[in-house]
């Protein structure tokens, strides 16, 4: 079985990577490669942020379809066409790795999907016996509670999605807030 080039090689050297492919099977693979590139890039950004700025200043991971740098490759003189960008964004949303912020223009990117986070959060709750008390989303991402755990720094929007999944599984109750995402409350069962 021939080994395929990596997504990095496609991005660096292959002009055809920047045209959304007509052939459906080929397009599927192309979009998946872009997804990997986007997620790797955001994962790297997050790591850098955590390292340099500390846990509190975890800015949201937002991708702007117009200006995301990886969509353009000056050396190849190519830029992913509009249809391609839309396809990549739609794929991120469909796979649980994205949520529209400004529909069609900007997108929250979730390196881990909400269902992955739901498992992580629930495991953490189980291990530390946190059931029964009401916590806010703010406490989850920036409180002492989760210091030095992966949950520290999680995006509020992402966190809420994960909590809603747990609610559907009857593992938590969510209390939405009128004021801000951070004020949303959750009680684990």
């Amino acid at each position, binding site marked *: 079985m021939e080994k*395929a080039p990596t997504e990095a090689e496609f991005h660096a050297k292959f002009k055809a990577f920047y*045209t959304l*492919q*007509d052939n459906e099977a080929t397009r599927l693979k192309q979009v998946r490669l872009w997804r990997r590139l986007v997620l*790797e890039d955001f*994962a790297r950004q997050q*790591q850098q942020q955590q390292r340099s700025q500390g846990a509190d200043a975890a800015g949201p991971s937002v991708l702007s379809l117009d200006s995301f740098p990886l969509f353009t490759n000056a050396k190849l003189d*190519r830029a992913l066409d509009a249809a391609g960008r839309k396809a990549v964004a739609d794929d991120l949303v469909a796979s649980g790795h994205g949520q529209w912020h400004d529909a069609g223009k900007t997108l929250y990117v979730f390196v881990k999907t909400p269902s*992955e986070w739901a498992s992580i959060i629930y495991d953490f709750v189980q291990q530390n016996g946190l059931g029964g008390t009401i916590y806010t989303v703010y406490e989850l991402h920036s409180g002492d509670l989760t210091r030095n755990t992966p949950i520290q720094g999680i995006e509020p929007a992402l966190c809420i999605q994960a909590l809603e999944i747990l609610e559907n599984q009857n593992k938590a109750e969510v209390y939405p807030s009128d004021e801000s995402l951070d004020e949303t409350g959750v009680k684990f069962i």
Partner: protein
Amino acid sequence: MEQLVPAQLTSAGRAALEEDETQVATATRVSLCDRNKKLLHECKEGMLAVTTHHVWWWTPPQPGRNPDEAHAMKLPLQRILKAEAHSSLFRREPRIDLFFASDPSAPLLRFVFRDNKCAEVFERLQTSLARKNWEKPKQVVKRESGFNTQFAGVGGVMRRQQQEREQTANLTTEAFSDLKQLLDSASEIVKLADRFSSAISQNQAKAQAAAAAAAGGSSETVERKQEDDFFALLNDMGIANPATKRACGSRYHEELARELADFLAKHLKRHSATGAIALTDLYCLVNRARGTELISPNDLYQACILMKPLGLNFVLKTFESGVSVLQSISLNDDTVSSRFVELLRDQNDPFTARINAVSVASAFSLSLQLALEQLKTAEKLGYLCRDETAQGVDFYLNLFEHVQIYDEEAPPVPPPVPPSH
């Protein structure tokens, strides 16, 4: 019926005429009967053709049936003593009776017509019998045998060439001034064209050998290009027996289809390296070859549609964009696509190896339209992928082919932070 001899059909099911033989009349749905008006075995309603040398009778081969069932026979005209035509008013079965030397009193063979060609066929038959083309000498231009001082030396060579030119000019004037004589001369004209084309190809071979030996001058290439064009023109003049509407009636499109199949079997390789030709190009080629009795685009299209049901070697294919091409059945999309992949693999780096309609059209002698269609087909089959540029579409090897995708992907491991550049 001993006078009839078994005969050969071409691969497309038409009469395989001899070198000098020219077709002068055809009819459909003709039955053969003996002197007692009894139908000869399996000789009901076939194709009839009168030529300068024979009367042909055959049943066109049907696809899917035993080829041995389709039989063809021909009757040398020189065996016929005389012919009579009879048309009865009451039964619509006009016929031609043929008399032979073995029994001058009674017709041994009768052709019974179901279409309305009897009179025309009879007239042409009489003409052919009178002309006795089988007795004519074969050469047109007689060479002087023996040495004659008139033709010695450079002056002599020039005189001889002058004489040949005059003979050729006379031949063409004679031929074109009288249509009847044209029928006679048709086969001779074709032979003349063949002679020219073989002379030119000999010249070409010599010129190529000389160019290979010497450094090769640019004036030679211009000359050679002109010769190439002339050579192509002559080759295309090879059809002396066009299937015409008058001759074939309701079987017109079928006969046309067979004629096209024969023509393409000979000439397609020169016009297309991928064994496919767009209908628009075929229309021009075929009409240029026919010269007169041109066929309409619709006739061409109808004939092409019939190719598959008739079991001929070509099939009409229509692309999504509406472009129609005729392609040889031995050709398939995977073969063509593999050739494109070969072209790409010849370039060094798979990431930058690319082809487009222009490069493919020139590499395989295709029209741009056909080249683009075949490239898109290769893309559809997954051999190629595309890069849309301001100048058009480029096609690359489909490097995406072996990329593995999984339903559940492991979360990405961020690559180590690269050193700042």
